[in-house]
Every structure is written in structure tokens, then in C-alpha cells.
């Protein structure tokens, strides 16, 4: 019929064209099929094994993105089958059954009002002065040049995600207990989130304010992160140096004021005097903290304004750098950026040198020769994700702990067998006259613990 319409030659040409078209379509179709096969053949009813392979492939490629950080509890499921019915076995217990989030909702903040840490107080110095006068038994100075200090630290009330995280928190608080006992400092270990708006690293602000207002007898509040450890037990802070300042942080003036470097100072370990200035500073510091849009937006501002800051939500340290750099006239004269000793010591440059320090120096320096504080920034032993490999962090924390613990044990004549070992060995024999024994560092009865000698006992 077509031939009759068009003529035989033309028909044959058409046929050829059609054949070519068919081949083209075939190849095109094959290409599409192959591409679908590469991207999503699972939907096409390929053999079950291929489907499984593909799903594993995709899941594994997602996990591959963070290899160093995953800390997984080794719970071989099959091993526990025979234990799963035993109610007295701790290994098979799911802790989530314990905590009950009972009654009451979170306080819903008024979205129209700007965030405040609390009602504005303007006469704190007077209130505090009166209270101290009325309570002479709670003096703010224990001795001349020795202010009453409260060390504040804390951690979450829920167990750590990392199975050994709580163990390292325990060692860290033992380390702080030791230093504070030797230096006559009180400790407040916080496990409560006072303000849900200021969660995470900002949680310290409402806590600090609350403690300053509740403890007028405290002259200095010393905030210390839970991942910081004391490594110089003999070093007493130079209180006279700070008699005219209200905030002492480890840092460098050039890096904060000139370079606006986001790590120009460190808020993991700092001193804050209990006075009106401190309350005002906290009020000026807090506005970047409330979680959500405010914190994210503030984070962008900080990344833009500060040198070297990566992109993430606003943190208290960057906010402090920004505050000081932009309002130097208001705050700068009462802030002391200490770099003479390691009020905060970044662990990365310190932990490998401990043996060298033991050989060449002795406790009491507080600086690069024998750091006061070794701060494990970025390790996050309580969480599942840190910025450094697990092995390095935990092993070094053990070493730092033992380095500090050796100084305490030597009071009693012992020391760890090595910086990596939990076992201790005797280094001073017991005698029948224990009171004649003196420890090398003089920490048994150090001068900074002496009571003011008064006429009444």
C-alpha cells in the first residue's frame, strides 16, 4: 500500500531509515537502562542478591564519611542471647528504661522578649558587701592574698554515649578534687541544665551567674571544662597579680585585639571575680547563646568577623573574643589575658613531652616546663564523635592523669609504674617515724593550705 503511494525506491529508503531509527532507539534504550542500573537498579526487580549488595553498598558509603570518629559499643548480639533473660546482668540492661522525663514542660520563653539571664541587678556590689559584713564567718578572703575560690565544672546527667566516657569523667573529677584539696579550693560539680535555651557550651553562663549570686562569700569563680586536667599540683595561682582585674583567661592580647583570632583566648579554664562587673559581662556575653536561629545567625557573624573560625553555630569562646575585640574600652581594662603559665594548656603540644619534663624540671612552674592544666580540646571523650582519633585521645588522657596523680601519690610515698600504667609502686619506705618523712614537693602540708593563726582555736 505504501509502495503504491510513494514508489518502491522511496519505500526502501524509508525502510532503511526506519531500521536505523530502530537501532538508534535500541541503543538509546540500552543506555538508559544501563544508567538506571547504575543508579537505581534495585527498583527494577534485579535478583535479590544484587539488591542486597546495592543496599549495603550505599549504607557503607555513608558510614565511610566519618571513619575516625565512630565509637561503637562492641555488643555482639549473639553472645547475649543466653543472658538476655537474666535481670541481674548489667551487660544486657537498657539504661533508657531508668530515666523518666516526668511532668511539666520546658519553660517556653516569650519569643518577643530578648533573652536575659535573669532580672537585671545593678547594686550587686552593695548587696554583697552588706552580706559579707553580716556574716563574718564566711569571709571572702581566707588569708591575705588568698581569695576564696569556687571551682566549677560539670557534665551531663545522662550516661556518656562512649562506654568509657564516664570513666574519664571520673578520673578528671578525681584529679580536680586532688588539686583543690591541696589548694583549699571548693568544688561545685554541676549536672543540671539550668536553662534549656542555653544548652551545650553556653550552659555555663546561667550556672556561673546563679553561683555568683548564691555564694557572695566566693571571691573568684574558676570555671573549668570537664576535659581539662591539672598537671601541676604544686602551682598556686598568683593571686596578687589579679588584684585589680575581674576576668583572667589564658590567651594573648595581640591575637584577640589585633588579629581577632577565634582561638586568641580559651574559655575552658578562666577566673571570674564576683562583682557587678561580672554580672554585666555575663549579660553582654549571653545574647549570642540562645539556641536556634539566634545562635546560628550569631555563628555566621562570628565566622565572618573572626580570623580562622570555621562555620558552625555561635560558641561562647568566639563570642567572648568578639565581645572583647569590639568593646575593648568597656571591658578591656579589667580583663587579663594570661600567657605566663598554662591556665589552659592545649594537650596537643604538651602530652608528648611529659617524660622530658620529669627529667629536666619539677612541679611548681605551671608553664611550658610543667603545665598547670592540660586541656583535651576536641577529644570529647563523653560523646561518640571527636575531632581526634580515639586511641590518641584516651591514651594521652591516661598519661596526663597519671602525670598529675604521681605528684599526689608521692606525698604518700608512691608513684605510678609508668605514665601509661594504672599500677603503683612504692618509692619511699615506711618508717617508724612517719612525721619525719617529708615529701619532695612539700605538698603534705603546703604553705598555701595553712590556716590563719588566730588566738582562738
Amino acid at each position, binding site marked *: 500500500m505504501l509502495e503504491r503511494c510513494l514508489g518502491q525506491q522511496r519505500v526502501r529508503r524509508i525502510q532503511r531509515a526506519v531500521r536505523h531509527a530502530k537501532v538508534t532507539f535500541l541503543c538509546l534504550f540500552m543506555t538508559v537502562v544501563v544508567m538506571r542500573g547504575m543508579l537505581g537498579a534495585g527498583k527494577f526487580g534485579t535478583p535479590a542478591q544484587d539488591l542486597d549488595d546495592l543496599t549495603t553498598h550505599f549504607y557503607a558509603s555513608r558510614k565511610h564519611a566519618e571513619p575516625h570518629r*565512630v565509637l561503637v559499643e562492641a555488643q555482639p548480639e549473639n553472645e547475649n542471647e543466653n543472658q538476655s533473660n537474666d535481670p*541481674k546482668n548489667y551487660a544486657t540492661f537498657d539504661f533508657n528504661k531508668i530515666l523518666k522525663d516526668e511532668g511539666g514542660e520546658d519553660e517556653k520563653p516569650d519569643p518577643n522578649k530578648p533573652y536575659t539571664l535573669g532580672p537585671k541587678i545593678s547594686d550587686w556590689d552593695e548587696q554583697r558587701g552588706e552580706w559579707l559584713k553580716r556574716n563574718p*564567718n564566711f569571709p571572702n578572703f581566707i588569708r591575705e592574698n588568698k581569695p576564696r575560690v569556687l571551682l566549677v565544672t560539670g557534665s551531663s546527667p545522662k550516661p556518656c554515649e562512649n562506654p568509657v566516657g564516664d570513666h574519664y569523667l571520673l578520673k578528671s573529677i578525681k584529679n580536680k578534687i586532688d588539686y583543690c*584539696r591541696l589548694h583549699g579550693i571548693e568544688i561545685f560539680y554541676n549536672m543540671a541544665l539550668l536553662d534549656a535555651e542555653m544548652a551545650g557550651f553556653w550552659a555555663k553562663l546561667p550556672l556561673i551567674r546563679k553561683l555568683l549570686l548564691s555564694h557572695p562569700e566566693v571571691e573568684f569563680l574558676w570555671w573549668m571544662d570537664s576535659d581539662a586536667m591539672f598537671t601541676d599540683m604544686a602551682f598556686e595561682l598568683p593571686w596578687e597579680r589579679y588584684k585589680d582585674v575581674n576576668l583572667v583567661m589564658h590567651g594573648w592580647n595581640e591575637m584577640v585585639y589585633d588579629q581577632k583570632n577565634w582561638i586568641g583566648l580559651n574559655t575552658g579554664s578562666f577566673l571570674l571575680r564576683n562583682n557587678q562587673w561580672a554580672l554585666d559581662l555575663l549579660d553582654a556575653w549571653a545574647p549570642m547563646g540562645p539556641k536556634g536561629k539566634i545562635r546560628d545567625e550569631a555563628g555566621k557573624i562570628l565566622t565572618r568577623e573572626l580570623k580562622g573560625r570555621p562555620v558552625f553555630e555561635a560558641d561562647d569562646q568566639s563570642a567572648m573574643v568578639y565581645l572583647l575585640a569590639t568593646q575593648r574600652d568597656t571591658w578591656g581594662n579589667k580583663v587579663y589575658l594570661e600567657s605566663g603559665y598554662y591556665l589552659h594548656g592545649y594537650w596537643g603540644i604538651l602530652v608528648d613531652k611529659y617524660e622530658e619534663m620529669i627529667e629536666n624540671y619539677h612541679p611548681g612552674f605551671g608553664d611550658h616546663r610543667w603545665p598547670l592544666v592540660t586541656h583535651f580540646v576536641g577529644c570529647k571523650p563523653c560523646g561518640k564523635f571527636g575531632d581526634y582519633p*580515639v586511641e590518641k585521645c584516651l591514651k594521652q588522657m591516661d598519661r596526663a592523669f597519671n602525670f598529675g596523680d604521681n605528684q599526689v601519690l608521692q606525698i604518700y610515698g608512691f608513684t605510678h609504674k609508668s605514665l601509661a600504667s594504672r599500677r603503683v609502686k612504692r618509692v619511699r619506705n615506711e618508717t617508724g617515724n612517719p612525721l619525719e618523712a617529708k615529701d619532695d614537693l612539700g605538698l*603534705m602540708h603546703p604553705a598555701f593550705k595553712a590556716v590563719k*593563726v588566730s588566738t582562738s582555736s
Partner: protein
Amino acid sequence: MGQDNGSTFTTQKRSSGGGSALPTTNGRAAGAAARTMIPRGRQIHKTFNNIKITILCGFVTILVLRGTIGIGNLSSSEADAVNQNLIEETNRVLAEIRSDKDPDDPADSTDEPQFLSLNDTYTLGPKIVGWDQQRKVWLSQNPEFPSSVNGKPRILLLTGSPPNPCDNPIGDHYLLKAVKNKIDYCRIHGIEIVYNMAHLDKELAGYWAKLPMIRRLMLSHPEVEWIWWMDSDAMFTDMVFEVPLSKYSNHNLVIHGYPDLLFEQKSWIALNTGSFLFRNCQWSLDLLDTWAPMGPKGPIREEAGKVLTANLKGRPAFEADDQSALIYLLLSQKEKWMDKVYVENQYYLHGYWLGLVERYEEMIEKYHPGLGDERWPFVTHFVGCKPCGSYGDYPVEQCLKSMERAFNFADNQVLKFYGFGHRGLLSPKIKRIANETATPLEYMDQVDIRRPVHGDESSGSSETKS
């Protein structure tokens, strides 16, 4: 056969090879009659060509598909392998940390550990004599380290836990909470804490480890009047109550227990060594020396355990523990020691947790802190829970819930000072119980725990920590 079939044959092949019906095939079917014009050889040739192309394309398709998935297999297993390696390494590190192995153990640690034989006598250290006199002289020479601060004798709280992580992570979490609880109580009452994580004497490991440490602290700190041992599984639940030390001016050991259980029934739980106070004096050193010999692990401890089980009522058979040994010692040498031992049961210097923790809500409703006894227990002691190990004597859920409740019950008394409280005894979250004001010191004056206790005495508080 014939051209009609040939043409149908051709069209069928076409449609199967093409996969979609092209309009021309139908046209072809319709115009099958016209086919007779084309020679058969060429038809077959064309057919074969088509078949070849079809098969080739199909084959290539399958190959490529298979090849894609196959390659996918290889690459995913590579990433998987790398990730698996890292997870394994992490787990290896964790397992190493949690094991008992130590890098400084001698290479031949697989040998049998050396135990003291039954004939060896064990001593805590060189015999000290005249300690009371030595101490008095030292105190007079060192007036800046007095044994009393603001009228209160100096107390040192000693507690501790093993140096390696617990068998299960929850154990460490509760050790942490227990130490926070002790820090709070001791801060409020001006008591110093020593948290021991070292085995000073490898012979006296386990529950016996407290003995060398108590002795060591007594001898190193003559300014300390009382050493208070407290187990790591005991928590303060009355933050206001203070140990009435004036009651014990003629005694050197204060321990919770029941005299009738002790003397009449000779029960192995007549006293509890989970929480007790030792005065820093010669008598205490002598008692420690007499107490220690049942402790050294190995055959001595085993044999001693048998003696204790035979002599004490209700004691199961296991190696000697410090509590049974002390009871046995005080019973067998009653005349020598008992006049200086105060067996306290007026308040819960040790409070057995079962029977107490369920009543917390009732206590909150009816009573108030400061009583220290069954109305508001001073110490809640979780005997038998063993959260640091793998197995306890009680169901895990019951133990952990009770420990959480006790912790929050105590924490509420601390948080009240700051105007907060837990939302429930099992809740980690807190709620405000007092509004923030611009004059915070007024609220504080009403709720300060420290002041009513200390403010009455003329020399007041114990805030000075030195």
C-alpha cells in the same frame, strides 16, 4: 513455510527485538503480501542481521548491568573494609582500656601470682608506737595546721574505686554521680575528700584496700582528727545532718550496727564497714594492725574465710572480707577493743537501701532534712547492687532506679538552695521552684543549709577549708 510465514517470522522477530511496537511492523503485517517481491535469501539475511544485533545489544546490556553491580560490590567492600578496620581498632582500644592488663605487667605475668603462704605474717607497715604523743607534738609545732577548725574537729572523707573502668559503663556513671553527691555534702560541711584509685598494697586488694590507705592517711595527716571511710556505692541523702562528734569524745571507732546482733547472735552483718569513722590515734593504728592479717589474698584469705563462716551466723562461704573480719575481731577480743567502739544506730550512718528508697516520697511529704534517721536517712548504701561489676545480687532495674532516686533525692536538697529541683525522682531535668529576683540574697538567707547548723555556734562555720 513460504513467504507468508517468512514475513510473519520476520515481523515477530522485529517486535521482540525492538521492545516496543513500531507502527511500521503493523504496517508490515498488513502489507505482508507485498513481501513476496523481495528475494527470500535477502530476507533471511536481513533477519539474521536483526537477530545478531538484537542478541548483541541484549548481551551488552546484561554485561554492563552485571558489570556495574559487580564493580559496585568491589568498591563497597573496599570502603566497608576500611571502615570495618577502624571500628575494630576503636573497639580494640576500648577493650584494652577496659581490661585488667597493664603495660607494665612483667612479661611473665602468665605465671601464678605470688601469694603469701599461711606461715607468713603480714603487716601494714613498721610498728608505730607513741603515735598520740608524736601527733600532739607535731600539732603544737604546726599551729597553722590545727586539728580543729572553728570548733569542729577536722574530718577527712576517704572513698575510692578501682583504677580500671567498670565492667559495664553504667557503673562508671553511678560512681561519678556518687562522687558528685559526696562533693556536695563535703562542701556544705567543710570536709575534705580523698578519692583513692590506687592499690597501695597488692596483697590487700578489693574491699581490704581501704586499710593501708586509712593508715597511710592517718600517718601523713596528723592534723586530721577523724578519718571517715565511705564506700563508693553509698550516697548521702540528708544534706543537713551532721555527725554528732561530741557524742564520741571517748570513742575511737564509730560504726553503724546493732549490739544485740553483734554480741548475742554473732551475725556477720551486725556491723557495716561501708561507712565508719576512725579517730587518728594509736588505738586505731593498733586496731588496723590487728585487723589486717586476715586480708592478704590467696590461701590466707581463703582460710580466714572458712574461720569466719564457721564462727559468724549467717555468713555464706567465701573468702574473708573486712566486715566479717572486724566483727570476729571485736567479738573475740571484746575486752580489749569494745570500750572504745561506738556501735551507732540512732541515725543511718549506713542505711541499707531496701526499705528506704521506696519511701522517699513519703519522707518528702511528712518530714524534713536534718533528722538522719529512718524519717530522713543520712546515708543510703546500695549494698549488693555492685553496678561496677557484671552481676549484682539484685535485679539491675531495681538497683539503678533506686540509685537514681537516691541521687535525685539528695540533689534536690542541694538544688533547693539555688531555686531548682528535679522534676521527679527519676528525672534528670530540673524545674524552677523559686523565681529569680533582683535581690537573691534574701531568698538565700531562708534556705541556706549551712547557716542554721553553724550559725548558732559562736565561732560559726566550717567554711575555711584549710
